[in-house]
């Protein structure tokens, strides 16, 4: 369907750098999936640039304001799949105003002309309206995959439009969005002759869906392999769904509240036994101990268990984990306590990823404890651990040093000591040595989040040792500008730096002048940066967008929130009044 390949042979044979015809080069390059590899390939020479551009089917845009949809369409004419990310990550924590931007509609307006046969759209932290969803549903006849993660601005009406009009839909994945949940009737909008669904994830939604419609949908979609239901689906419902879909690979249960007769329990247990291919289990809202055993038969091949919405205690977790010998990824709540984590260490030797979320993060008086002891226990038992997200209320330098000694292969180390600026609770010293140990020992570290009482020494260590670090999150840490300077001068692969509530000022900000164009973005909030510092940055680096948001009632000279990112299209024109664009001034 593309243009005549002969038209692209612009150069006489003597200047051709490639020994292959374009078609062969394209064929070879089409086997490259990673967009980083593709970007590298495109820099080799013009022929390769062109070949790569023609063969790229999936484009990943990490910051929707770094480029325009027109430029994307001009460079990549044959794209079938787009991934777009919008707002800065700290918007997840309410630090970014709601009307900030990242509207997907301007992209859809270009895609309808340039990519009419678009098949896949994956959006993260974008503003999506019902009108956009309806536009998408009506104008892209080949549309197959919709994934919305942490987006906002739409309601279940938009989902109804997708269900009604997307005849070839294979994936509908709605996760953790700020959605206006009006009703569950959208699910009933899938036509009776619609059978192509493979992935259905509506765990995000609270309203009741029509169960009969769901049951019929699941029955007729024989290729369905991912089903993640919401809380409105009871255990009884679940049993009926599992009977229709024993081929499921990923299951998100609905509500796990006990309301079964003995016969129903036996039936449910049986339907779990039939799930021979299950590798992912999640949901388990309101899971309670007596009913967890029904899951055991289905756990044999589990590699990912997401219990982060189930308020389990240590014993319940232990009983469950005994049946999951192949577990690689585990997400839990800290209600399981250190004892529960000891069970993880004992039962999950193949574990690679652990996330421990806080059950009561904002109530300072009630503590479900995980401490350094739990983390230590996991590190002794799970030597393959390379991804951790750990929320706790106490930690020691010694524990962290031992942990990384046990597990030196960390690629993602995200430690959140929940009380800001809290020292090592045994020695009362800063946590500098903990993170020093992490960066020294874990040479493959790509992502790091630091917390606790930290001086500039932590950042000296990071700058000195974290040579593969790409993403760094810093809060309530550091003593002076030097801290930030160390990070900017030291980490050659740094792409995303987000900082809040640190004593870093203009000198620190400006020390990264040369660096920011090689990064995706910088976020600084509640630091000591001023408007004049930001203006200077904007003036010196015209290819950076420097955006400032001010808090109500703050000093006129303070730059309360600063967002700096590289862009080939200059300052954005859709910024709301609260966002000051200092670039180009």
């Amino acid at each position, binding site marked *: 369907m593309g243009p005549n390949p002969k038209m692209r042979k612009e150069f006489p044979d003597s200047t051709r750098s490639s020994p292959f015809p374009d078609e062969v080069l394209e064929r070879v390059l089409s086997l490259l999936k990673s967009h980083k590899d593709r970007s590298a390939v495109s820099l080799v020479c013009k022929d390769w640039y062109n070949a790569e551009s023609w063969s790229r089917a999936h484009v990943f845009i990490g910051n929707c304001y770094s480029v325009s949809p027109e430029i994307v369409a001009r460079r990549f004419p044959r794209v079938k799949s787009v991934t777009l990310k919008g707002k800065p990550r700290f918007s997840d924590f*309410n630090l970014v105003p709601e009307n900030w931007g990242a509207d997907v509609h301007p992209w859809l307006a270009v895609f309808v002309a340039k990519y009419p046969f678009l098949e896949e759209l994956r959006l993260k932290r974008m503003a999506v309206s019902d009108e956009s969803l309806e536009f998408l549903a009506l104008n892209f006849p080949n549309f197959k995959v919709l994934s919305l993660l942490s987006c906002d601005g739409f309601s279940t009406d938009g989902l109804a439009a997708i269900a009604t009009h997307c005849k070839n839909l294979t994936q509908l994945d709605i996760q953790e969005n700020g959605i206006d949940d009006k009703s569950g009737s959208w699910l009933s909008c899938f036509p009776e002759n619609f059978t192509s669904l493979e992935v259905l994830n509506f765990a995000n939604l609270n309203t009741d869906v029509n169960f009969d419609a769901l049951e019929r949908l699941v029955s007729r979609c024989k290729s369905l392999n991912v089903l993640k239901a919401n809380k409105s689906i009871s255990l009884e419902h679940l049993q009926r769904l599992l009977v229709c879909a024993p081929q499921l690979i990923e299951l998100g249960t609905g509500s796990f509240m006990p309301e079964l007769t003995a016969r129903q329990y036996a039936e449910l247990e049986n339907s779990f036994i039939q799930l021979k291919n299950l590798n992912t289990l999640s949901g388990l809202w309101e899971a309670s101990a007596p009913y967890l055993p029904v899951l055991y038969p289905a756990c044999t091949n589990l590699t990912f268990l997401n219990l982060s919405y189930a308020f389990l205690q240590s014993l319940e977790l232990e009983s469950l984990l005994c049946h999951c010998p192949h577990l690689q990824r585990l997400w839990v709540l800290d209600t399981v306590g250190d004892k529960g984590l000891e069970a993880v260490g004992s039962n999950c030797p193949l574990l690679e990823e652990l996330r421990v979320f806080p059950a009561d*993060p*904002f109530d300072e008086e009630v503590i479900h404890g995980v401490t350094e002891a739990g983390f230590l226990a996991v590190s002794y038992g799970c030597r393959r651990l390379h991804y951790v997200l750990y929320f706790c209320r106490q930690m020691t330098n010694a524990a962290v040093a031992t942990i990384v000694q046990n597990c030196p292969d960390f690629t993602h180390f995200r430690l959140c000591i929940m009380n800001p600026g809290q020292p090592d609770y045994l020695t009362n010293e800063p946590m500098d040595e903990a993170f020093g140990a992490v960066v020294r020992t874990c040479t493959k570290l790509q992502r790091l989040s630091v917390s606790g009482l930290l001086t500039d020494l932590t950042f000296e260590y990071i700058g000195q040792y974290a040579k593969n670090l790409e993403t760094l999150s810093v809060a309530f840490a550091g003593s002076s500008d030097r801290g930030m300077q160390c990070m900017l001068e030291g980490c050659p692969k740094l792409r995303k730096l987000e900082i809040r509530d640190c004593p870093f000022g203009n000198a620190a900000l400006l020390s990264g002048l040369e660096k920011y164009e090689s990064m995706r973005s910088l976020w600084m909030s509640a630091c000591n940066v001023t408007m004049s510092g930001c203006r200077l940055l904007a003036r010196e680096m015209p290819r950076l967008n420097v955006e400032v948001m001010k808090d109500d009632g703050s000093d006129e000279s303070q730059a309360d929130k600063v967002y700096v990112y590289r862009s080939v299209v200059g300052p954005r024109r859709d910024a709301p009044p609260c966002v000051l664009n200092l670039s180009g001034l």
Partner: protein
Amino acid sequence: MATTVLGTERADNYKETELCLGLPGAAGAKNEGETPNKASGKRGFAETVDLKLNLQAKEGVMDLNENIKNINSKDKNHLPAVTIKDPAKPPAKAQVVGWPPVRSYRKNVMSQKNAGEEGEKASTGGSSAAFVKVCMDGAPYLRKVDLKMYKSYQELSDALAKMFSSFTMGNYGAQGMIDFMNESKLMDLLNSSEYVPSYEDKDGDWMLVGDVPWEMFVNSCKRLRIMKGSEAIGLGTHLINHLIITIYNISLKHQELWRNARAEPELDVFSLPAEFPLFSPVSMKKTRHTCATWVEP
């Protein structure tokens, strides 16, 4: 930058309560102007309980009268409590926006869950869980316990002991309640470095755990705090009131008995009703005198 979870402003409260009780003159004078730390508090307390000594009324008489008047109007089982400022609440921290970094989505889901828990408790009239927060002095942990899961003080005590491993609670008597009438045992408990559980009741008063029947406790307890025995002095004072009132009542009875017995030169003390402690006439006289001094304006 780091602050301890538990507050530490308790000292002044105890001072107030000591004076209110009309402590022995010596103790009163000694403790005045002194922030009762553990050591001085201990001394003062010892003198409080030692009824055999020469007790003198002090400034606190009026307060005690108040309490005694109140005892008739209050529920029989509701002891006249000395209301002290809530000692356990740490200084309120300003909530930091976006910290800890938990996604809004997850935050909403969690708060729905917690609200559901509370709502369920309210709607089923408390027949489901009765969660109360438990804090322990010096521990970095606070926990929540469901009082409905236990049937007696001993069960609760065992559960708390497991929860806070360095914590030991004084033994509860056979009836499961602190043996108030055994003043020396009470004294030992409150003077020791053993931990003592206290609780905040529906009226916001802090009481020693164990003073009311178990079911009543479960219904009125809002939160628990486990404090060092020697720091529970202020809480013990209401028990002292109770002791004093009880002893006074006993002494009235005794007066009557002695009057009746005067006719008989040899009094058979064993003919006294079993529930009355045996005071010798000498100490009885003193006690009677002291109680009378307290009570009469």
